[in-house]
């Protein structure tokens, strides 16, 4: 019985739509399975803000990697350029997407190799001083 409760709780924690801080909900959160020799990867999710005021994300952290940050991407002089974002605004009644080939959560210096189905946790901080945690499942995107 106890084992089932633990499984249900684990299931809830690993749910793809979780993490509430104020009015922001992160959905479809996942992490790209990195090739075994690479110590970098990215996490993706959609932040939905059902509230009446904008929520400003100011930082993200995870125990999975030495450096975790919100990254923007832009094509500059024919090169894909990545840069750290100090703030990401989730507009009131709006969404912001961290997505492949666009703004993403960068993980540099993974502490250990990831495996498919594993759940990583990302703690976001907001300008209002709140924080919330988003679980994201590692996915193998091959074929």
């Amino acid at each position, binding site marked *: 019985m106890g084992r089932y409760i633990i499984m249900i709780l684990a299931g809830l924690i690993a749910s793809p739509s979780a993490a509430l801080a104020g009015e922001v909900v992160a959905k479809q959160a996942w992490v*790209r399975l*990195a*090739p*075994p*020799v*690479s*110590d*970098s*990867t*990215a996490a993706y999710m959609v932040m939905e803000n059902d509230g009446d005021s904008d929520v400003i994300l100011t930082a993200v952290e995870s125990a999975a990697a*030495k*450096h975790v940050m919100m*990254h923007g*991407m832009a*094509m*500059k*002089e*024919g*090169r*894909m*350029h*990545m840069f750290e974002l100090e703030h990401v605004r989730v507009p009131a009644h709006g969404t912001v997407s961290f997505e*492949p*080939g666009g703004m*993403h959560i*960068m*993980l*540099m*210096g993974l502490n250990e190799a990831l495996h498919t189905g594993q759940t990583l946790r990302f703690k976001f901080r907001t300008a209002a001083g709140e924080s919330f945690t988003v679980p994201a499942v590692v996915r193998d*995107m*091959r*074929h």
Partner: protein
Amino acid sequence: MMKKHWKLISAISVMLLFAAGVAGWSVWHHARPEIPGYLKRMGGDFTLMSADGPVSLHDYRGRVVLVYFGYTHCPDVCPMALGVIASAMHALKGSEASHAAGIFVSVDPRRDHPDLLKKYTAFFDPHIVGVTGSNTVLNQVAQNWHVSFSVPKAAADENYTVEHSTFIYLVNAKGQIVELFDEKTSPKLIAQAMRRWLD
């Protein structure tokens, strides 16, 4: 009356011949796609180092090749591009598949040694070969292939990102760049293009 009849037959014959000509030209044109002018000025042979020895583009004559320039510590666009390349190659069957290949060129030789590149590319598809070279050789290849990249001055054990072009080049069986894609192109579309250039 008879004369009129022959005139009509002649006119119809000319029209039919013209239509057949147009249809024939269209089929021929479809079978042999044209290389856009701007691509004719890009590319060229190169020899870079893989874990199993030197690899030259001319080793791949007779095969269509997808070529991508990136680095293994790349968190987003490189794994996307290699995933797309692997999926496109995976969509080809039988003799098509045996006449297709992929080359991943690392522009970050300070960290990406050939042995590591082999393991990296094998994760996506063992038919993709990972190569790199000296900065001098890489700069020359990049110039010929219109690849722009910038590696920061940092130690190999530091975490740094590399700015780079994100084209997936399709090279035909003669070693010419014939089409450009990127990590957001559908693998199905790339596979179709590979088939077109294999015909």
